[in-house]
């Protein structure tokens, strides 16, 4: 009987410890939020920039101004959205399954 009590106590203590660790981790992850935010912003802008640059270059080569620029700019915009969603997805899956997954410590 006494052993059972001890077992319960240990389980409770372990649970509390686990929870406090998880709280610490969650804080850690939100501290990296700045990095994730900057990643999203730069990837969004870079995609649009590259798309527009490709379109502009193709216009120069094929003398189709301004059609390539318009099409590739829109493609770049779509790429930017795709990239931002991808980063957000990674970040979300990392913060949700915080338990024991080492990737959550990286926060990205």
């Amino acid at each position, binding site marked *: 009987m006494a052993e059972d009590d001890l077992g319960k106590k240990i389980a409770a203590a372990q649970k509390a410890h686990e929870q406090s660790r998880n709280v610490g981790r969650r804080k850690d992850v939100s501290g990296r939020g700045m990095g994730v935010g900057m*990643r999203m912003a730069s990837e969004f802008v870079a995609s649009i920039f590259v798309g527009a640059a490709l379109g502009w270059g193709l216009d120069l080569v094929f003398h189709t101004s301004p059609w390539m620029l318009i099409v590739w700019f829109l493609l770049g915009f779509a790429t930017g959205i795709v990239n931002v969603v991808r980063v957000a997805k990674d970040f979300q899956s990392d913060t949700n399954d915080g338990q024991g997954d080492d990737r959550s410590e990286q926060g990205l």
Partner: protein
Amino acid sequence: MLEMINVMINQVATDPIHQFKLSKIVDWQIGGVDLSFTNSALFMAIGVGLAIVLFMMATSKIETVPGRSQSIAEIAYGFVAGMVRDMMGEEGMRFFPFVFSLFVFIFFANMLGMFPYFFTTTSHIIVNFALAMLVMAIVIGYGFYKNGFKFLKIFFPSGVPAALSPLVALIEFISFLSRPISLSVRLFANMLAGHIMLKVFAGFVFSLAATGSALAIIAPVALAGTVAVVALEFLVAFLQAYVFAILTCVYLNDALHPGH
């Protein structure tokens, strides 16, 4: 005296970009190409030298119970090794020396830039772009070397309907090309903006205090702001080196496992 202070204020407050100016220390013209040793190159060399000396000191006498410098080296190793293993798995450890060098180089360049009157190497986009292109060259080279033409699967992710795959391939192509740009622009923009912001805030302290009017009361607020920005910049200096290294891992992972 007053005139001297005025000149100082003008320099600090009106030219926050002066700190990024390249100057030649040794003028080298080899075969018509300008290979001068600049202040940027000097601080790159200082950063690399410092890293080598520190890590040599840390590993010179290895003990079971690590001393202070050995702990720092072990933490740095564990930090990057953990990052590489998480992102690429055990076989990614072949890239560990590359990722570690990259991380340490950028970290030292950023941190050296935090010293007053020091030059921030990473505030010049061409330096970062060269590093990013090195990463992309390794991704493409190793990707084709290991996977052959299967490497092109990175443009055709699995689970995409056949009708959509040309569009998706175009989007993935732009995404791939945008990687070196987003990698270098992020580091460059953070260092540039941070250092300009620091200079401008510090300039406010002088120009507000120099007005001599009631505005001078606000000067300490600007000073407190400067202190806060310095703290933020230290965080950003570490964070940007970290983000650069982790994205290098993400991109190298594409070379190891394309099209997942």
